[in-house]
């Protein structure tokens, strides 16, 4: 097997693990599977188009601010009113919101995909021990590692992080010790929005266009990654997302040419097999059922 495949698979796995983390964080705190999460990445994509002519730091900062703003708006206007409703109500709300944001993007930017000027500086390639590694893969890996370290430090070393973890375990008891649920949930949406913006930057860096439906595949990957990793577990989510990206890339590389069109089918067959063996996911959190 060509080791180059492994390098590419690690790059994709790292990006998918980031996608999954943003979705899993909100699920852990309020039991909400936010299917509008993919639309946050799509909004990030359109922000990149609008800010493409700006310096890189302004493009990154602007994209994060826009996506976090929409993430907070989502929480305040759509999810807070149904917070105490059933999980099914919250799920339907997230589907409705996803549709609304898609149609809003369609009206604002048109039905046809918007071309995105390539980031040529990211396609620069380096050679290490016979392996070709693009700047984009290095950037994705470094960013993913930094986000994981940052998230771990935030959750372990700051008061809001400890409160977030307490709320993910027992939201009722968290209220009894005086943790303000509005504050903690808003913090989760800020972190989730920031991760969605970073995903958007890394994801669209290799794409030639952004469309109103760009978020669909992302949310599917994030959802399945979170499920096989173990809902409610951050480590599980990161691992599940990584495995999704890694296995998908390897399937595309190793399957015979005539079978590659069925790579998705092979991937989801593997997902079903994992769930049959471990219904709670690879690292199942207590009290969460898939």
């Amino acid at each position, binding site marked *: 097997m060509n080791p180059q495949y492994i390098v590419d698979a690690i790059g994709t796995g790292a990006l998918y693990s980031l996608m999954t983390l943003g979705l899993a964080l909100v699920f852990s705190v309020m039991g909400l599977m936010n299917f509008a999460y993919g639309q946050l990445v799509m909004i990030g994509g359109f922000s990149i188009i609008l800010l493409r002519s700006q310096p890189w730091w302004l493009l990154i900062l602007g994209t994060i601010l826009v996506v976090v703003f929409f993430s907070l708006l989502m929480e305040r206007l759509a999810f807070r009113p149904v917070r105490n409703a059933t999980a099914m109500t919250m799920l339907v709300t997230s589907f409705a919101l996803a549709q609304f944001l898609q149609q809003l993007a369609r009206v604002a930017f048109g039905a046809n995909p918007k071309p995105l000027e390539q980031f040529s500086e990211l396609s620069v390639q380096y050679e290490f021990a016979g392996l070709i590694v693009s700047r984009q893969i290095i950037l994705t890996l470094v960013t993913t590692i930094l986000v994981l370290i940052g998230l771990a430090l935030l959750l372990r070393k700051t008061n809001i992080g400890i409160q977030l973890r307490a709320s993910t375990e027992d939201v009722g008891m968290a209220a009894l*010790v005086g943790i303000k649920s509005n504050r903690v949930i808003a913090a989760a949406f800020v972190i989730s929005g920031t991760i969605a913006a970073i995903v958007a930057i890394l994801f669209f860096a290799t794409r030639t266009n952004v469309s109103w439906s760009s978020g669909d595949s992302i949310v599917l990957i994030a959802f399945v990654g979170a499920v096989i990793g173990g809902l409610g577990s951050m480590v599980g989510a990161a691992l599940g997302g990584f495995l999704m990206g890694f296995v998908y890339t390897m399937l595309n590389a190793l399957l015979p040419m005539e079978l590659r069109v069925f790579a998705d089918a092979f991937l989801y067959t593997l997902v079903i097999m994992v769930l049959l063996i471990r219904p709670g996911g690879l690292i199942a959190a207590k009290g969460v059922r898939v």
Partner: protein
Amino acid sequence: MSLLELSGVRICYGNAVAVKALDLHVDEGEFVALIGHNGVGKSSTVKAIAGVVKPTSGSIKFEGNDILGQQPGAILRRGIAVVPEGRRIFTRLTVGENLTVGGTVRSDRVEVKKSSAEMMARFPVLGKYADRMAGLLSGGEQQQLAIARALMSKPRLLLLDEPSLGLAPQIVEQVFDLLEELRKQGSSILLVEQNAAQAIRAADRYYLMRTGGVIESEAAGGDQAKADQVESAYLHFGKA
């Protein structure tokens, strides 16, 4: 004026009445026990005081202020801390983090750190396992952590719901010794217990509840004979 005063409190879950009309009070520095069998409405009373459930009628006053219908966080800020049934410590947080979370309502973080160190000195086992995940502690150690976590908010009244539940008799003794020590230090305590004899022995006063209301209220004050007498009658009620 009593520290805590419940008058005519009625708690319903839909059409089911959990508490009919409860009158109860706790004075400053007093240790009061609320005893009764499973299902008589003791835990519902705790939840109503803590703001988890809203009574359908009656009043709950703390230091003369009406707290009925307020959110749990607001009630904690007024000075009522809860040690819930089943302990409900945060098992995936370390012992030290559980204590930090207990001090959430206090604004001075330096003071919270100081209090955390004090708790670890007061409960040596918590100091010993400060960096260990709380879920790895034994039942008795978890109960100590639940009490220490509640004390982190510097409450005026400590509300304990069945602290002896699920613990070995020897550990139960330790928990009651701890409550006795807190009482001696001037803490106001409302203890909800099924373990009637032990609760009466430890408390200054007790209320005996049966099917949604108080049927007896008397001074206890470590009276062993009284504790045995009530327990005997209480067991008789249980069989009725």
